[in-house]
């Protein structure tokens, strides 16, 4: 039910101006001009990229149900929320989301948390247990963290527990969202529950449970600063100041949908400076919409040339590929490989 309400409430915010896929692109975190522009226009930052792995088929089952139950209807290809739909979301306040600043990275935090909790839970009994998280970066991070705090000391174990509990208590979220988060954790001889198991026990659909869980993770990370033992686990999770100040300004304008020329004019800067900013953005943001500037084929061609020539010199590449611009080459070289 949570997912249904959230989707309807976002359509309500779109104010009858967007089609049925708009919420899908928002949840997926699509970096196209339209989606990004809408985030600003309709103030949808909290919900941007909250479920990057959502499939269209999964989303469509919700949309079809919403149409069938007449919470929404279609007028001129735009979704309109019906009276019934407005009633549905009357008391609905989706709290805790901060998608704009996490975009799927909250899962890296959860992995760390899960491994720390599992280790502490096992510590009094045994240190020979199979780690629930097998990814190397998580394991190294957690190992360093635990070593730093001398985790076998009861004092640390108590402090960690108290901080986690107090932090969870303080979060302005319903009990169920916290319950889901805690039941995804594993400990000594008690494993976490799968989404399907939680669905059966809580009688709520998987997407709703996952969305609640995401909201809980976001607020947990956002509120962690007064709980140092938890805050330490949130290192490099939040996406904040990735860019220099000037580039940030360009980026802000760019993601509102302004063209390079418009930004240059507006900021009274040379076009080449704006191009510098875009290159910086491409470098810092794995989701930079490179294809908006360079075709997939050209991107591949530039990468291949750079590799064969063992160079990042623009001219050398340009000589081999006369039809692409210097700006395009710069973007491709700056952008992170897929």
């Amino acid at each position, binding site marked *: 039910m949570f997912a249904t309400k959230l989707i309807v409430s976002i359509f309500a915010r779109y104010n009858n101006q967007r089609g049925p896929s708009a919420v899908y692109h928002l949840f997926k975190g699509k970096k196209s001009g339209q989606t990004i522009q809408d985030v600003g226009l309709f103030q949808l930052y909290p919900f941007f990229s909250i479920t990057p*792995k959502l499939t269209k088929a999964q989303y469509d089952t919700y949309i079809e149900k919403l149409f069938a139950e007449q919470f929404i209807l279609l007028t001129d290809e735009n979704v309109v929320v019906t009276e019934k739909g407005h009633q549905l979301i009357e008391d609905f306040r989706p709290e805790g989301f901060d998608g704009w600043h996490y975009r799927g990275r909250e899962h890296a935090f959860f992995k760390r948390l899960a491994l720390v*909790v599992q280790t*502490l*839970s096992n510590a009094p009994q045994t240190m*020979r*247990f*199979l*780690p*629930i998280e*097998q*990814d*190397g*970066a998580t394991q*190294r991070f957690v190992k360093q963290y635990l070593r730093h705090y001398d985790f076998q000391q*009861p004092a640390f*174990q*108590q402090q*960690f*527990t108290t901080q*986690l*509990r107090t932090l*969870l208590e303080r979060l302005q979220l319903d*009990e169920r969202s*916290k*319950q889901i*988060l*805690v*039941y*995804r*954790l*594993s*400990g*000594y*001889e*008690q*494993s*976490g*529950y*799968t*989404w*399907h*198991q939680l669905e*059966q*026990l*809580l009688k709520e659909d998987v997407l709703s449970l996952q969305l609640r869980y995401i909201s809980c993770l976001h607020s947990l990370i956002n509120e962690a600063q007064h709980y140092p033992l938890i805050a330490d686990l949130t290192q490099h999770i939040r996406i904040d100041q990735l860019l220099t100040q000037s580039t940030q300004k360009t980026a802000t304008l760019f993601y509102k949908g302004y063209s390079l020329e418009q930004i240059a004019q507006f900021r009274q800067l040379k076009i080449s400076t704006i191009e510098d900013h875009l290159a910086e953005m491409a470098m810092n943001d794995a989701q930079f919409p490179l294809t908006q500037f360079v075709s997939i084929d050209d991107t591949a061609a530039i990468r291949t040339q750079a590799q064969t020539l063992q160079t990042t010199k623009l001219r050398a590449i340009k000589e081999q590929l006369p039809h692409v611009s210097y700006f395009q080459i710069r973007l491709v070289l700056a952008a992170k490989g897929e």
Partner: protein
Amino acid sequence: MELQQILHERFGYTAFREGQQDIIEAVLAGRDTVALLPTGMGKSLCYQLPGYVVEGTIVVISPLLSLMQDQVEQLKQFGEKRVAALNSFLSPDDKQFVWQHFEDYRFLFLSPEMLASQAVKGRLQQMKLGLIVVDEAHCISQWGYDFRPDYLQIADALPAARPPILALSATATARIISDIEHYLAMKQPATFIHSVDRPNLHYEALEIEPFEKAAAIIKQVTTFEGPGIIYTQSRKKTMEYASMLQQAGVRATFYHGGMEQQDRMLVQRQFMHGELDWICATNAFGMGIHKNNIRQIIHDHLPQTVSSYMQEVGRAGRDGLPALVTLYYDARDAARTVEVATLDLPTDVHISRYMAYADAGKTRAQLVANGEMTDTAFRVLDYWMRQLAPSEVSQKIQELAADKQQQVSAVAKIVTSTCIRAQLLAYFDEQLLEKPQNCCSACGIERHAILAPYTDKNNSKDLLNWQQRLNQLLPFN
């Protein structure tokens, strides 16, 4: 140090299991070695222990990411820190970390495609190697049930002056063994073939009408003790069985390759910790399940090959206590299994699409990305297209299809024979010398003599509140 002493101090075992010591001694004597040990007989120890005797890194080539990670974790549990896996699924950070410490590892796991890279080859040439292990070595043979073309390049990637090779597999026929020796360019290998017979496994094959299968399975599960695994062929079926068992009050869930990684891990752990009694799964389940007390394996279909059947039933009764393995089949099962088995073979259409991509200068791997063929089909096709002319490839694929058909027929023949155990052994060129009591359904079987009755486990339907649950996980107040 004595082998026994290392075994005890490093691994906490008091004695070798059958076959292990001979294999380890051959390896330590510097001989190329082929060792076949049935699933659950402690294959890994055959290279883990030499790691503490020989000088230099033990390089283990392993076909599956999950298997590799599982082995790494297992070694870490034994307190080994100098162990790592290098495969194409590692994050760039992780890869770099492994790369920086390459020579320092005692155990280094490599996927075959990593081994093929020039950089890795170069590194291996320069460092001190103690032993080369080829795990799941049957993957090298196109007659094996899990042919990996990458495996054929292993010999080329190894330095000329190399340490001995240890090729490991659970099951292999004579034809596969000779492929292993040939393609790995082994020098007068010592070969150890442990009997594939598992006297504590009791085999059942029951013909049944398709519409009666589910009811029979539920009845069996609620009559006799678990824990157990039900193997089925589709993801949908895993969910159906799980939900039927849950309704019958059984602590069961499903497992298939389409689930997210964390959920798969949770199911494995719940099963291993005894929080669940039954898993309804596709053949994706099993690798890396170290659970000794599995009492039953149920198949609702004919497996694709005798070897995969052996692998799957071999997960039962690793504690040496009796276990029942039951296969339900109906007359049309063989045809259905052949269909599933050949699903992943490339077709003539694929061959022409492959060439069209090549002509257009497109990356051929795009065939998979564009949904034109499965990953497995591409892997097989790509390999043969590089080896043979297109017309020969078509021929080759027909041969492979015929072979798959034959493998399924072999399974069908065994389960409908006069003694399942004797025929299983015969398939692996072995003779059954001693028939245990309650040998198999063909010889006559008394289920009650094998298994204790089902007991109702407390299948609580209520969750604790979050404070209580957190307190259970972290009882530090």
